[in-house]
């Protein structure tokens, strides 16, 4: 699979190849915005992308061309993703798309006049799930239904991917409902990330439909979903739990205060999950800040 940094076409690709390897390793995002320099972001800093010392600027036509190339000239196959404001690339890397919404019958059908693209690296780190699982079990968390709650860019999906791998390697029949194709990073030509031998991926399915289909047809021990949202997701997860299937999901939250987040409060009160793991971004993504257990335990965590 092609490294994510080389997904944009030339001349941007040439400019990226000129970067220092130390910088390349730390890069997390490349942001293209109309008529301003292309910006590179690490977790703690940013810099303009330069070609032979001159900042590279992308115009509206350039952004259209980049988007067309990123989707293999097949926008028709990505309309639903585009409608939701993103495109997922092979390898699970996500491209945020900023443009003007096109409305039809009171619903956004697509985007036009694209003014910004944000190519974001999908991390794949092995071995981060094992210590977490060990800690949860040590503190008496019964069951394997967990919620990972964190603000954006705190490593939720990376942790989720490693949890899938851990359970799959352990022989659990795992079904990943990968609505945005980020967890598995698979496409027609590549299997994507290593998720072990016991994981099936329902790619592009909406969460409620994917969960119900998984229960009916794939006989899972564990269902994994990313970015839980509305009541339909909750209802489908409850159905899975009633069917004796464990569930692991993620949720966007600002901090570990349920009172301030109605969705988190609703999920917690539904008793769907045996534990909630909160992640933070400081000093780096993936830091476990707080854990709750359904047995009323506040599990101690190491402070940074």
């Amino acid at each position: 699979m092609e490294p994510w940094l080389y997904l944009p076409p030339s001349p941007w690709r040439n400019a990226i190849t000129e970067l220092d390897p130390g910088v390349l390793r730390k890069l997390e995002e490349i942001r293209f915005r109309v008529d301003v320099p292309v910006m590179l972001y690490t977790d703690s800093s940013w810099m303009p992308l330069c070609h032979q010392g001159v900042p590279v600027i992308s115009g509206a036509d350039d952004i259209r061309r980049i988007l067309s190339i990123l989707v293999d000239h097949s926008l028709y196959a990505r309309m639903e993703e585009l409608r939701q404001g993103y495109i997922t690339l092979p390898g699970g890397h996500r491209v945020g798309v900023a443009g003007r919404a096109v409305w039809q019958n009171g619903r956004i059908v697509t985007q036009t006049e694209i003014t910004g693209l944000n190519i974001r690296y999908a991390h794949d780190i092995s071995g981060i799930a094992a210590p977490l699982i060990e800690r949860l079990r040590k503190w008496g968390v019964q069951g394997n239904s967990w919620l990972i709650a964190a603000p954006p860019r705190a490593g939720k999906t990376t942790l989720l991917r490693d949890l899938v791998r851990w359970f799959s390697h352990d022989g659990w029949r795992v079904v990943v409902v990968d609505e945005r194709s980020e967890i598995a990073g698979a496409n027609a030509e590549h299997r994507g990330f290593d998720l072990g031998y016991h994981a099936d991926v329902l790619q592009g399915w909406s969460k409620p439909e994917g969960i119900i289909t998984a229960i009916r047809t794939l006989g899972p021990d564990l269902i994994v979903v990313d970015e839980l949202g509305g009541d339909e997701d909750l209802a489908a997860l409850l159905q899975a739990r009633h069917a004796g299937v464990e569930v692991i999901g993620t949720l966007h939250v600002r901090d570990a205060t349920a009172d301030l987040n109605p969705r988190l409060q609703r999920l917690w009160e539904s008793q769907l999950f045996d534990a909630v793991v909160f992640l933070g971004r400081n000093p780096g993504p993936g830091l476990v800040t707080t854990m709750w257990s359904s047995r009323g335990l506040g599990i101690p965590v190491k402070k940074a």
Partner: protein
Amino acid sequence: MIAAVWLGRAVARPFRRRVQLLDAWVKCVGFLVPAIVWRQAALSQAFQEASITYPILGPQLRTVVKLLATRAVDISQAFAQSLAEESALRPREREVLTDMAAKLGSSAPDYQKEMLRTTEMLLKELASEARKEDLKQARLLESLISLSGVALVILLL
């Protein structure tokens, strides 16, 4: 005599090829409709499959796939380059195909379907005209050369 008939056929081949190519493009565009609208396969994949189904278009479609894989050209440039390798098609026929390429992949499936159906109709018309015109010319040329060969044989005798 055999040589004369063979020569006649060889001279008439480009005329027949134009008709065969246009017929294959009509079918290929029809093939792209379900690939794009229903299966929503990526264009490269659809072209790859079409190149196997319609071998006469294989070299052109494979060139398009190869050029797209470089990420250096857009689809209309890739089509223009691949069609440049095929001398049997006339400018109007190339124009219809490059017009299709310029719109291919850049809109929702329903619009793609509409555009492909329009292209298919245009290509059908062009193929029908080509069939009438070129087959006549091809047969005429083939007969003339074959007859010349026969005449030469008679003269030599």
